[in-house]
């Protein structure tokens, strides 16, 4: 059976892992690197289940209940912005110190490992240098912000952004209606997780409408709109920012080329024609900054402050 059948669009990664399972050359540490929400975690879990399932025939029962004693998933604790050293030294290390219970391997998955504090990363290094022979550590990371010394001790498995049609397929598999699936897929910008959030959003229409309004208002001259928009974004900050980014790109392209076939979102051409013209270099600079700003939604920052910053970047692009 192909254990990676449910992982769509990551053929390179899954064939690499599949091969190492077939030949039995499983390395002690993997780094799954790629954009957020493209299937790294699903892939890691499938891989872990395959490793453990090789010598534990009843493993599926335990996976279903999420209690397999030889699988550990380490995540950032709620209310904290980093994975702390204590999580490594007091949770992971003692766990790795015990021999396997049912299988012949123990698999630890560290989710969002880019969020490890420096102390945590250094504590992890010790484990990566001299792992017990049964240990498999899978690090999952969204970006390159990881100690070089850790990267060099792991086998790197790259994950790419997904094509829209793959995301659409995944959404359809989850019984999302076709039209919505197509729209959400193009909004996902290569990330299934984002696309699913769009598709599951109940007030989808409202978010859509809000985002257009924000662009219209911010393209005006009134600076007070920066604050008004920021408040409106509170409805669903991350989703709206993603939408804004897509819209601004479309506007940029349409205002330069007037070619509708190049646009991602339906109806952006009307929006683009209804607002003031914007200098491409200003907009590109603003988009760069917004891409950076939106990463802060995941850390311990008040979302309203991020909204204000993002709104200001957009307003400034139109007004300089």
């Amino acid at each position, binding site marked *: 059976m192909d254990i990676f059948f449910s992982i769509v669009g990551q053929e390179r990664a899954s064939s690499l892992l599949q091969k190492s399972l077939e030949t039995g050359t499983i390395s002690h540490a993997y780094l799954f690197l790629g954009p957020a929400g493209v299937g790294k975690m699903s892939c890691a879990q499938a891989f872990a289940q395959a490793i453990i399932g090789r010598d534990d025939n*009843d493993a599926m*029962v*335990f996976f279903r*209940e*999420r*209690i397999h*004693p030889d699988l550990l998933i380490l995540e950032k604790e709620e209310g904290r912005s980093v994975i702390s050293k204590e999580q490594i*030294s*007091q949770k992971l*290390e*003692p766990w*790795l*110190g*015990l*021999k*396997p*219970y*049912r299988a*012949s391997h123990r698999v630890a998955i560290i989710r969002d490992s880019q969020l490890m504090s420096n102390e945590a990363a250094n504590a992890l290094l*010790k484990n990566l240098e001299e792992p*017990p022979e*049964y240990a498999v550590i899978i690090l999952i990371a969204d970006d390159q912000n990881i100690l070089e010394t850790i990267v060099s001790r792991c086998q790197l498995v790259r994950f790419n952004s997904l094509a829209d049609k793959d995301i659409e397929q995944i959404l359809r598999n989850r019984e999302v209606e076709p039209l919505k699936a197509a729209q959400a897929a193009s909004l996902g910008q290569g990330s299934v997780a984002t696309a699913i959030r769009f598709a599951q959003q109940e007030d989808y229409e409202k978010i859509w409408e809000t985002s257009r309004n924000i662009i219209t208002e911010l393209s005006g001259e009134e600076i007070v709109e920066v604050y008004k928009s920021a408040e409106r974004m509170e409805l669903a900050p991350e989703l709206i920012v993603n939408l804004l980014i897509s819209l601004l790109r479309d506007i940029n392209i349409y205002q330069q080329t007037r070619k509708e076939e190049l646009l991602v979102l339906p109806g952006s051409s009307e929006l683009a024609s209804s607002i003031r013209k914007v200098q491409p270099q200003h907009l590109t600079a603003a988009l760069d900054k917004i891409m950076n700003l939106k990463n802060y939604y995941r850390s311990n920052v008040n979302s309203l402050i991020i909204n204000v910053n993002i709104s200001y970047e957009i307003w400034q692009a139109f007004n300089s």
Partner: protein
Amino acid sequence: MKFMIEKRDLLAITSMVYRAASNKNTIPVLSGLLLESDPDTGLTMTATDMEIGIRASTDKIEVMEKGSVLVNAHYFFDFVRLLPESQIFIELNQESAQLDIKYGRSSGFINTYRDYEYPALPLKKIKPCFSISQEVLKEALKKTVFAAAGTHFRQVFTGVLFDLGEGGKLNVVASDTHRLARYSCNINPDAPEPLSFIIPTRTANEILRLLDDSPEEINIGLSNNNVSFYRKNFLLLSRLIEGQYPNYEQVIPRSFSYKVKLDTQVLADTLERARVIPSDDKLKIQYTRFKFEENEVEVNSYSEIMGEITEVIELKDPVEGEGELNISFNTNYFFDVVKMLEGEAKELLINLSSILGPAMIVNPQKDNYLYVLVPLRTSN
């Protein structure tokens, strides 16, 4: 399922087993206690949180109907513990999935878990290894487990080592690198090949609770990853700690410059008073300074905040060794072993080499136990 049992028999087996169930995990099966009744085998209870698992059974029971049921281990234990001393009648109500418990004219029920898939204990790969008298194992663990580390980046120090050498000589060792306790004994002569394994301290403490003070033997079985302690009607399964235990024989000193015999009771009282003195800001460990002179020992503990205690213990036999020696020890580490040996030894033999050399504490009447304690380096 339907059976009748005396409360004391029910409590005996429940209290053995329930502690293996997880009390933090929210997943039902792991916080559950599995009861199985069968006219042929009696009543069997199993609990596991997958770190350790315990199974016990009893035949002092009248089984009317075969069956099995999973209940919350801690609720069940609390209920059973407080039942009156009488015949208890237990029956599973299939329709409501409640376990009815009747005692005298009173009754209660406990809700059970439905549709559970209980994780079987992985016993298949376990091979019988050796057996040891329960009272000896109990003494061995009691005298060592306290010396293991609570947390340590080298996981082996958070466990207790069983080291079986040639000819059935068994060493049970625990250390946190600042102190080391070793208990030696001989097991039956047809002992297997030399082997060693490390059990977690939690497992050691659970076994301690479950062992009898009897010469009756308990068997030990091993697989690659697990160890099992079992006797008739009882089994405990635990995971092993991975890793190579350092060569502990190397850290046990062989020659000494000073030897002192101290009255155990007097030393215990002195150290207990010394423990009143809090630790300093500089050195976050409570410590006691010893000054060994020819005919007496001065024991001093000092804190800038709280005060100071100085005691003089007069010696019956003079110190063997040249000149006086000043040395400091972690008060609690010293106290632990003195307290441990208080019951059995009237006098303790303390072997010392130098101000920073490790000390060795033994009961001069016996040679099966030793405790190595590393002194502290203090500013004065």
